């Protein structure tokens, strides 16, 4: 019976249907299916399929977004149940992301946030136009493991170097993995400023973070 629920969860997420996926989640709870199993083997498994399809160019960005939204809707129902039963929705890691000072472009950052969240990470998206100090403060407060910096403007890229320098000066360079993204950024630039990684797009960002954290 649990297999049937998991299958339906996967199917409704692949269909990107918020309402149906929530119905299935409720049905699962009523039938006593383990909420954690529903999250891991139902929802996340389906999102992985969508992620693969997106990475290989077989679905469009809106399909990825809608599937993630459906997944969020189901998790919102399952998580309280999980807590009630004494379990926790164990996240894969803690990821903080921001667009650097001077940059208010947030599309790329939002896509990465969404994919990271739906891949099972705890995501702290602190928004746009954030100074190095603000980013570091937020990283400390949220005990981030990986920090993602985003820039669209060529003129805000130097803020990324500045952030890494701030980490070094504060003696915290080894405490965080710092990764970069954004149209003008490149692997070469990431290497030059001593970042831990660079990803050209959101799906590669998720792979990179998994690799950095070995999860």
């Amino acid at each position, binding site marked *: 019976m649990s297999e049937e629920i998991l299958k339906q969860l996967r199917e409704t997420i692949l269909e990107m249907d918020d309402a149906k996926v929530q119905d299935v989640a409720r049905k699962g709870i009523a039938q006593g299916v383990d909420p954690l199993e529903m999250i891991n083997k139902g929802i996340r498994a389906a999102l992985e399929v969508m992620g693969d399809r997106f990475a290989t*160019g077989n679905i469009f*960005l*809106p399909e990825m977004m809608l599937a993630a939204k459906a997944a969020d809707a189901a998790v919102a129902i399952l998580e309280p149940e999980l807590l009630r039963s004494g379990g926790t929705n164990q996240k894969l890691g803690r990821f903080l992301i921001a667009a650097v000072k*001077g940059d*208010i*472009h947030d599309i790329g950052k939002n896509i990465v946030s969404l994919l990271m969240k739906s891949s099972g990470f705890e995501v702290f998206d602190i928004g746009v136009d954030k100074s190095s100090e603000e980013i570091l403060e937020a990283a400390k407060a949220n005990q981030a493991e990986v920090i993602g910096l985003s820039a669209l403007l*060529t003129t805000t890229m130097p803020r990324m170097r500045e952030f890494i320098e701030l980490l070094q000066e504060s003696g915290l360079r080894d405490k965080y993995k710092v990764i970069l993204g954004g149209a*003008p950024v*490149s692997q070469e630039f990431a290497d030059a400023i001593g970042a831990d990684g660079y990803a050209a797009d959101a799906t590669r960002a998720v792979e990179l973070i998994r690799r950095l954290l070995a999860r």
Partner: protein
Amino acid sequence: MDPWNLKGGQLKILSQSEIEKIHQQALDVLQEVGCFFESLEALDVLEKNGAMVDHSIRVVKLTRNMVEISLKLCPSSMLLAARNPKQDIHAEGDRVYFGPGTLPVKVSDLETGKVRMGTLQDCRDFARLIDALEFIHFFKFMITPQDVNPKIPELYAVDAAYNNTTKQISSTSFSREGAMDLYRMGVAVAGGEEAFMERPMIIVNMLAVSPLQWSKVNLEAIMDLAKVGCPLIIGSEPQGGTTGPAPLAGQVLLNVAETLAGITLVQLIKPNAPVMWGNVGSISDMRSGLFASGAVELGMVNAAMNQMAKFYRLPTYSTGGMSDSKIPDAQAGVEKSLQALLVALAGGNYIHDAAGLLECCLLASHEQYVIDNEMLGMICRILDGIRVTPDTLSFDQIKQVGPRGNFMGLRHTLHHVRSGEHYLPRLFDRNTRDTWISRGSKDIREIARQKAKEILATHQVEPLPQEVQDELTAIIRRAEETYAK
């Protein structure tokens, strides 16, 4: 053909009733949805002039009346002066001018062919390169140099431009102070504030961030520049599917609304301030979310936006001639030609990104500039059109030659060929295969590379007077010692 006196406007991608529909809906967007203005100063100005302001979220709803009055205050023509007055830009009506690609960070090295970060020396070289290219009419911030103070790259790039081309100069800025310094540089080259009013030597562009947001820095720069009467480009660049609606009509609508919001503010700050209508919109490739700079939809949206500008009787700034290809190849040729031609035929007055860019506006290439100059030459020929007169109809010559003769030996033929009736490619090869082989079987990239090297080795630009050079240097030094420290 006079490349400085060409007109587009032949292409009407929207009908008159569609234009009016878009206009009315744009007013609805501004009145019902509103626009985010990050600057408190701007909110204040808008509120005092009758806009509904929600201070908690900084969203302004503009009345139809405010927008329509502001539109009527905008001058319909704009002189943009060049150091060489023969290269002045008269942005008005259907006149067409082309400019280079802006803001790439990388350069494809002319010697090694390797991709590397752009430098201040590149700013100088690229300015000198376009100075020599006959179908590129103006300069616009061509390289973001990575070896200067990152707070003020625009000042370095514009200083390099004034020193290395006599063509007209434009740039964006990244700070309120930087924007005013660009104006001061223009004043220095013009020879004082009064001289600048007669012959404005710079235009500064400021764009909204889609959807419907104007950032603090850009608003402050706009307000300062409007006050001193510096020509401005006001526009936005929604990307269909991500930061704008997927349908092109919706994207044009959003672009119009965002631009109108900016222009309204400018006219409230200073009535009759010179402002150019800016179009930069394209689509995102929805398989990745990435900006599709070479999309044919970019040309279509820009063509439509040019029609909107003409409906408002405003000079236009537009975009066309980009490519997502990484090298100067067939993809680059097709993407660039279609875009540039669409926008030129729509009568874009000041078409930037028309040359030199590759890799989604991240890479500048010398050989691509030389190739694109050829493309623009052909487009100029198209704009020059088919003149129909008794002389060009050639009835007398047809009669003279008659059946079975030929036109090769006629003075009439010579006259028209000499006066440019046929565009003669500067680079493209029309030889027979044998001749092509005997000349080394060269591909266009190699020919263009040689041409670019030749230009950089030989082309001289009349230097700025020493005292102007010193003034520009002093402006940068002051910036370095104060806000850019």
